């Protein structure tokens, strides 16, 4: 089965982002296809290379990057949501004249069209961190 995920939560704001990661890992482990993970709203913070949590706390960034390398899943960070929240690629930082870029390796910026596309081309679209 073909899955895509949508993540609305920042990595350390709650459990949702970690649950999304574990779900994505389970999808891959069970032999399903993981097409795309679309990071939207506060979920764009998952694509920041800068968080430095204490060593004995979970760090979601490396496992996302590992999953991306192993499965080729697209980790797409919504560009409009990311601009609002300060998650920028090198070229965006330059274009918008901001002092730094922080989009992590393995993640890419993309438009909302990629969310619509994921919805159209996946058997299941699973959202994490939506309204309670």
């Amino acid at each position: 089965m073909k899955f895509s995920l949508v993540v609305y939560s920042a990595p350390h704001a709650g459990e949702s982002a970690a649950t999304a990661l574990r779900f994505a890992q389970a999808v891959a482990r069970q032999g399903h296809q993981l097409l795309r993970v679309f990071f939207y709203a506060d979920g764009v913070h998952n694509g920041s290379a800068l968080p430095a949590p204490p060593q004995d706390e979970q760090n979601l960034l490396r496992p996302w990057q590992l999953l991306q390398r192993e499965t080729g899943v697209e980790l797409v960070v919504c560009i409009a949501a990311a601009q609002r929240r300060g998650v920028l690629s090198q070229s965006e930082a330059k274009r918008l004249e901001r002092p730094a870029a922080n989009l992590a390796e393995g993640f890419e910026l993309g438009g909302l069209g990629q969310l619509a596309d994921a919805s159209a081309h996946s058997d299941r679209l699973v959202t994490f961190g939506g309204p309670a």
Partner: protein
Amino acid sequence: MSLQTLILCRRAPYGSALAREGLEAALASAAMDQIPDLLFSGDGIFQLLDNQAPEEIQQKSLLRNLQALPLFGVERIHICQQSLNRRGIGVDAIALPGLELTLVEDTGALIARYQHVLSF
């Protein structure tokens, strides 16, 4: 065959960024020729009210996004009747030219008809 995508709008317009970002997702989807249906329920119905003054709190009005829906091919929105009742809001408080309003009694049955649901 089930319908493609339902976008569920459940947040008050200026209390959560998800209200705006949900409408932006709806517009983007429609722009890709995948015209979604929309259901406003819970506090999401506050997005539809006439006479909003978001500039008082330095916010950008969401009405422009709603008014853009018909331009992108979304001609009808669903509204949860029970959510209106619970908040004491009549459907006459909603004025959105170009959009047909459909009041829904059984939102569960509506949601079940869709292949995908994006909840905001």
